[in-house]
């Protein structure tokens, strides 16, 4: 779908030399396990559509069934080529299942393979999302005052109450963002189902990306408040 048109669609089986589709796990000719192509896509690898609402039980069944097909324990006496392929495929399977099992990681991965990875490396985006500037500003002021209170030896009950009150609007934003993310996920899935145009998809993904980064930022803020409370 979003692969460049020059991307190959076939690979050569290293055991018998026959051609095999890029998304096949085993050679259709000799049935030997195939090496992992360089750009494996986790959705395709697990045989599920590139959607955000996935059936957890179905995903787990696929994981177990493919584990039984790929695991290195079952290739102990095989050729080095097959053993290598078994290691690659079971590693990819484990990585894929770990990623797609968690809704947050699933969104992040979708954004990445659709070319919308959050900028910079890793989680990046330490900049305050514009939509949250007001709250973050208010929170930082409140936190500074609370720290002053604590340093001034104020009673725990007093500053904890204020911290808790400072937390509430952020928590409300988190709930709001979760709901928006779910709605956007449903819109994405619908777009996939009806074969929407690239433009429509892109619009959903852009919105998804913004909400996702904001949600992560909010999660960090909440974790910071939590640390403040427990310190």
């Amino acid at each position, binding site marked *: 779908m979003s692969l460049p048109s020059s991307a190959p669609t076939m690979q050569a089986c290293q055991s018998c030399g026959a051609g095999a589709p890029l998304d096949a796990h085993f050679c259709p000719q000799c049935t030997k396990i195939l090496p992992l192509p360089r750009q494996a896509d986790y959705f395709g690898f697990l045989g599920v559509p590139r959607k955000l609402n996935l059936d957890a039980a179905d995903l787990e069944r696929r994981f177990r069934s493919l*584990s039984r097909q790929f695991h290195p324990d079952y290739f*102990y006496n095989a050729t080095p080529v097959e053993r290598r392929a078994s290691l690659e495929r*079971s590693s990819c399977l*484990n990585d894929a299942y*770990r990623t797609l099992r968690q809704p947050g990681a699933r969104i992040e991965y979708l954004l990445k393979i659709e070319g919308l990875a959050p900028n*910079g490396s*890793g989680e990046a985006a330490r900049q305050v999302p514009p939509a949250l500037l007001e709250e973050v500003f208010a929170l930082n002021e409140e936190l500074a005052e609370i720290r002053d209170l604590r340093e001034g030896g104020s009673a725990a009950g007093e500053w904890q109450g204020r911290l808790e009150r400072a937390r509430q609007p952020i928590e409300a934003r988190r709930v709001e963002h979760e709901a928006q993310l779910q709605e956007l996920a449903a819109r994405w899935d619908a777009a996939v189902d009806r074969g929407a145009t690239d433009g429509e998809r892109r619009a959903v993904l852009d919105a998804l990306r913004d909400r996702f980064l904001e949600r992560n930022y909010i999660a960090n803020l909440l974790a910071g408040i939590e640390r403040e409370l427990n310190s």
Partner: protein
Amino acid sequence: MNGMSKVVGIDLGTTNSLVAYVKDGVPAVIRDRNGDGLVPSVVSVAADDTIYVGREAQRRLLTDAKRTVYSVKRFMGKGREDVQAETGHFPFRVTGEAGGVLRIGVGDREFTPPEAVITVPAYFNDAQRTATRDAGRIAGLEVLRIINEPTAASLAYGLDKRHTGIIAVYDLGGGTFDISILRVEDGVFQVLSTNGDTHLGGDDIDVLLMDIVLAEMSSPSYGGPYVGPRFSGAADGAAGPAPEVIQEVRKAVIQAKWDLSEREETDIVITRSGTAEAVPYGAGTAEAEPYGATAEAVPYETERYERHITRAEFEALIQPIVDRTLAPCRQALADAGLEPSQIDEVVLVGGSTRIPLVGRAVASLFGRTPHSEQNPDEVVALGAAVQADILVTGNREMLLLDVTPLSLGIETMGGVTSKIILRNSTIPATGSEMFTTAVDSQTAVDIHVLQGERELVADNRSLARFKLRGIPPMPAGMPRVQVQFQIDANGILSVTAREQRTDVEQTIEVKPSYGLTDEEVERMLVESFEHAEADFTARLLIEARNEAEAVIQATEKSLRAPDFAEIEKSELAAGERQRIESVAAGLRMVLTSSDRETIQKWTQALNDATQHLAEVMLNRSVNAALAGRNVDSV
């Protein structure tokens, strides 16, 4: 396979080792003439170089303690510094790293098969796993697979009933503690999480009791002439009791510990007769004869120590040890995303779970009576045999999906660990990180691989440092070097790298601090014991030098940093730079010496001297990052 596979499963225990194999589809422990399957994990090298293992070696603990080695599993893959505090309780000396120690374990010729599956505590790190694999290879085994003890135990339990559900395996052995939580379905045993402590077990209980007994024996009211306040572990043992006394005490308290699992009270009894040096135990019996009950041994006044102990006293004493197992249990539950009530079955493994207090603590944590139908000493070896059978016969009834117990990462700017593969990831697993260069035409980057959960590099275990070479010369920041980490099904790491713009691939040989290459193992197999130890020492010396060079380079790099002058003015104490420079110069001077400890001492000194500077630079890079500036360079 004629119903009988030629591979075995080995449970390499701290206290005892077992060997099992699968015959006609049923795993069985290999036993000796007396029906005994437990081989004590003890090796003794007599003065005439005769090697004793197992029970015979165990007897020699009382007669030739200094030449008899036990509980070495606790030292697997550890540096001398890691275990120094503990070695005081052992009569044998831990000198240098474990060249000789690695040899023991499975050296029993009777049981030496060509291929084996060896078990390790789930919480063993990469260095400890590699050390175990090397131990097997040096003993002449082809190690098919390293599997985790709790997982092996679950495999053995899963044989009887084809159950589905969530199992917690609580494994408290002689020296190590593990907790693993597994989901079992369709014959797939999937570990969800694991946790533990590789330095917690029955040995710690023995030490508590030994401390009490040794203190009482040396008190004025007891008045034993040869007993000091506590065995210091000094080479000459000047201040402490003779090693044989320690072993007498150890034997007596272990017996008391066993008794108290069956009874409400017991007596610790230690009797001695003979001289302090020369081997009094069992003198005069035929059994003791070959071990040097020499003619010079002057009969000694018989002495007797006796102490009554109740189960309540014992439990109060060991409560802190049992409590230490509970935090890892809770962490494993949290990592699996489960409440204790969601666990369907709890299985007890390891000899120390025979202690009633342990069973009660587990029952109260999980809210259910744990299973202990299988012999807790044998269940791990049986499971290892099942796994060996799977590998060799292609039996596909069952499949183990294990996890890596500790996160794997690399060092990034400012001494911070960046995690690449998180703990409890199902293995095999991969992870990758992109590197680039900091200066134009740079053709190599340094990579430091770490294992552990902490943020700072210094708090985690250093697995390997290597230089990634062969990067095509390009402007700084242009190369895109993807370094891929691969953990295999044994939980052991390998690394490959690829420069993506030019598609140059390079497989890096990671030299873990404690691992041996195939060639080294081969050489150690053919050469003499002493020679192998010398090789080992030489390699350790090289590693110490490499480490020292790495620290010197890092220091020089910091001192040359563009903002160093500014840092020195605003953040460093007067003379701090001069001190760093003089220690660095000192380290450079000892670098060519062949005294590893001196090199290590100076390396440590330089690390200490630069610690503050490193913190300052870390803070600056964190602040820079918070200010949105890019510090993504290595």
